[in-house]
């Protein structure tokens, strides 16, 4: 393999990994607070891509406006799901919540098939993403450059919220001890709602960038990216935000590199990712950055 192809593939892996990171954060934040795997999260990512599609292709909004609108509307969808499907079950056994999450995922997927049609739609890729770069003779696609940059900006914003604002402090507190956080006068329901909003907003950003990278969208497009991002969250240590970022990058790079180095095995690219999930669950279930599980006293 030439160095040029290697670098192209590495950037490709990093940009794919950035997208997994963005989605993985939604899984990990919700898990950190509610101990719930939000199986519908991949479908929220799909909703983001569709909202952007309608905003740009149908309503002809400029991209910057469409992107902001998409993030806001998708965040609202996330809050709605939490309010309608998860909040009423909050004091029920975890397993009820988990089954509900699977149900919500199927509901969204099938609702999308019925209302939007199963046929893939061509995504209106923003010009910025479609422009290729020539750097010292290396040809690099715009997506490979912009996706990691935008992801870094979003993640910096996220870390700012989590570690520097009052609501972020409340989120970290809720993740450790919901009842004690209530005793601080924090409206915990609201904090949980914002958590869903942030996770869904990031998934929407991921959805738009994913659709710029692979410019066809369809109602089931969220399934595989969702599961792989979930794998990334587990690899990084579920509940840990930095872990989700690192896990996403690892999964993205591994996936692309297996295809690049072993082209004959490219049909197994998804299998490789899920093999990583199985290995981690067997060998290091707490992930790279997760805390060791403690018995609750």
């Amino acid at each position, binding site marked *: 393999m030439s160095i040029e192809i290697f670098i192209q593939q590495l950037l490709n892996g990093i940009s794919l990994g950035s997208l997994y990171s963005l989605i993985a954060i939604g899984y990990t934040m919700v898990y950190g607070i509610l101990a719930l795997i939000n199986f519908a999260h991949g479908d929220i990512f799909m909703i983001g891509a569709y909202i952007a599609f309608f905003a740009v292709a149908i309503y002809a909004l400029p991209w910057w406006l469409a992107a902001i609108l998409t993030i806001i509307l998708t965040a609202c969808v996330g809050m709605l799901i939490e309010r309608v499907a998860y909040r009423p079950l909050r004091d029920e056994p975890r397993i009820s919540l988990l089954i509900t999450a699977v149900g919500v995922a199927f509901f969204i997927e099938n609702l999308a098939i019925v209302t939007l049609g199963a046929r893939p739609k061509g995504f209106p890729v923003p010009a910025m993403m479609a422009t290729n770069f020539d750097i010292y003779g290396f040809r690099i696609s715009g997506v490979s450059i912009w996706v990691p940059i935008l992801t870094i900006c979003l993640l910096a914003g996220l870390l700012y919220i989590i570690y520097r604002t009052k609501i972020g402090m409340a989120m970290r507190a809720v993740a*450790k001890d919901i009842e004690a956080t209530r005793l601080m006068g924090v409206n915990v329901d609201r904090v949980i709602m914002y958590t869903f909003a942030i996770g869904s907003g990031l998934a929407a950003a991921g959805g738009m960038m994913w659709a710029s990278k692979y410019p066809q969208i369809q109602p089931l497009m969220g399934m595989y990216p969702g599961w792989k991002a979930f794998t990334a969250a587990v690899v990084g240590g579920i509940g840990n935000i930095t872990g989700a970022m690192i896990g996403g990058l690892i999964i993205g790079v591994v996936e692309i590199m297996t295809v690049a180095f072993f082209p004959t095995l490219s049909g197994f690219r998804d299998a490789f990712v899920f093999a990583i999930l199985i290995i981690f669950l067997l060998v290091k279930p707490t992930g790279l950055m997760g805390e060791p599980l403690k018995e609750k006293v």
Partner: protein
Amino acid sequence: MLKVDNLHVYYGGIHALKGISLKVDRGDFVSLVGANGAGKSTTLRTIVGLVKAKEGRVEFEGEDITNKPTHEIVSRGVLLTPEGRRIFPNLTVRENLMLGAYIRKDKADIAADLEKVYDLFPRLKERQNQKGGTLSGGEQQMLAIGRALMGRPKLLALDEPSLGLAPLLVKEVFEVLKEINERDGTTILLVEQNAYAALKLAKQAYVLETGRIVLEGTGEELLVNPQVRQAYLGVSS
């Protein structure tokens, strides 16, 4: 200030509180003593809305707060330091304290109160950038009390603040409570298994047994009450 009237609480089929009535006046220091499982913690938890009452009424400053959401009750000025301290181990000491002031908006006053808490507990200032989980048990109890003070409580309820602390620290905790009550005029409702200390500090005290109040009086009265001495102070008469 706080009036609890005929409170009934059930945990599933278990009748945990069977008609608790008590009263806390402004500036008062009230202790609830009793054996394990008597319902002391449940009483506090019901007052702040963590546990729902089936029957009865909780009134704070003349307003009904029965079964209101906890964050609403807290913003009225009723703060509970829960059993086992429950500080946030993943937040720094300073963040723990700032979270205690979550309901407040007055930035300058919050900063001033932070200094006051640091004056009260200099150890917390030394460790302000350390994670709460790295503190010793005694320091965590100081942090839990400081955190509650940051919310400017009108009524400070404490659940077993001496639990698991070395005798010297227990003494320190009770001295701090006395100071908060006498100097700052903060009303205190204390739940303690350490009946001697709790009664000694209390102006008014109640004895709970299996979900009922069986005795009440001033702290001094109960300290010399033969029943109390035998059952809770380990003195045979």
